């Protein structure tokens, strides 16, 4: 097994043994979506109109929750230092950790999102675009989040700083994710928005490892 997959497997094993992250992300996602009908009232027309936006915004916030621990635990116990001194380039390790993070948090979000959309009476025509958008969008959330997590390493109240750094960068994902659903419902087809999300994903996979690895090296100096 290559070093890359060994690192992914180790992060997955840690996540499963510690158990908290995925459950916390999903619980936050579900609870915050459930708040909306209480706040804005249960009228189906209103909920239907804002459903796509609510699901995407809460998914974004839920993804933020687990980011702080992405490198923090490894930084604190010295593992990050040891990882940085392995032959496998730090850039590849960032990608491996993002992949593991996405499998633990992004994938459950994708599975739960349609159920929550059902709760909010999203137009049935919008489901394929919701799922496709989440499949393309959630990995971007993990990747961009990795830059924020690396930059806020060692900072006091890193979690707050992380949110401030990362949330503005999430805006394009939010725009195209919601636009894809709206376009599908109105019969235009979600293709252009999904293609833009795919382009963002390609860009993030190509650039994030370098930015995050540079930030990690600075933190270790």
């Amino acid at each position, binding site marked *: 097994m290559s070093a890359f997959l060994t690192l992914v497997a180790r992060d997955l094993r*840690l996540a499963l043994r510690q158990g908290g992250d995925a459950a916390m992300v999903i619980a936050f996602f579900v609870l915050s979506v459930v708040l909306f009908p209480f706040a804005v009232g249960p009228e189906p027309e209103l909920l239907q109109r804002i459903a796509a936006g609510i699901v995407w915004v809460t998914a974004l916030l839920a993804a933020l929750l687990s980011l702080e621990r992405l490198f923090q635990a490894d930084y604190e116990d010295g593992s990050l230092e040891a*990882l940085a001194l392995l032959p496998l380039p730090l850039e590849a390790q960032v990608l491996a950790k993002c992949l593991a993070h996405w499998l633990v948090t992004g994938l459950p979000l994708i599975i739960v999102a349609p159920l929550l959309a059902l709760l909010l009476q999203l137009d049935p025509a919008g489901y394929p675009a919701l799922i496709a958008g989440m499949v393309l969008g959630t990995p971007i959330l993990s990747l961009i989040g990795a830059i924020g997590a690396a930059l806020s390493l060692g900072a006091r109240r890193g979690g707050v700083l992380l949110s401030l750094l990362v949330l503005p960068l999430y805006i394009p994902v939010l725009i195209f994710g919601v636009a894809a659903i709206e376009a599908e419902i109105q019969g235009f087809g979600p293709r252009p928005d999904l293609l833009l999300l795919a382009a963002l994903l390609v860009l993030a996979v190509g650039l994030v490892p370098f930015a995050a690895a540079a930030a990690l090296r600075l933190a270790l100096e």
Partner: protein
Amino acid sequence: MPPDQTLRTTGDFTGQGLACRRGERLIFRGLDFGLGPGGALVLIGPNGSGKSSLLRLMAGLTPPEAGSLAWNDSDIRQDPGAHRARLHFIGHSDALKPVLSAGESLAFWARMRGTSAPIEPALARFGLADAAGLPCRYLSAGQKRRLALARLVGTPAELWLLDEPLTSLDSDAAAQLLAAIAEHRAQGGRVVLSTHAPIELSAAPRLSLADFRPTPAELLA
């Protein structure tokens, strides 16, 4: 086990005119060293004199403020990947996860370096054969230290950089470590270690960091 071929390089690991700055403070300057195959270097000096910083410089974790480090006359910054592949760095922290067992932890670090050999001999060598299945959170400080040191013999690497390796070790484990170091050097490996303990390594020059402390005038510059 046959001696590993990777330990058979010739040429010296040298540092010239090294200076190190942590934050605003210049810690040492004008430091030279040379380390040939089978050689060892013992770093001594009071707390804060820069023993750990020098080891981090040697590992390539921190860039030197001035001067250069070279392996066989080629600067280590020219090929950081090759430098990382030939070294083991054991710092102050043990880089262990509370939820992984001792065996899993050691296997992870070995696999990350591309070794597929069983890890039991390395565990047994440091008296951890019975603890292999125990999660690291149940290990004592000394056992954790032994486990970190077992990484040295789990995978071959030419250069061992050890930051106060004797901390919390009992006399048996310390003897084991010294035996492992002697064996490593007999095969052509090199060791740099920092210590406060009066340990005896054969033919190992002592480098006192206090000799390279900057003068008050240099501190102000």
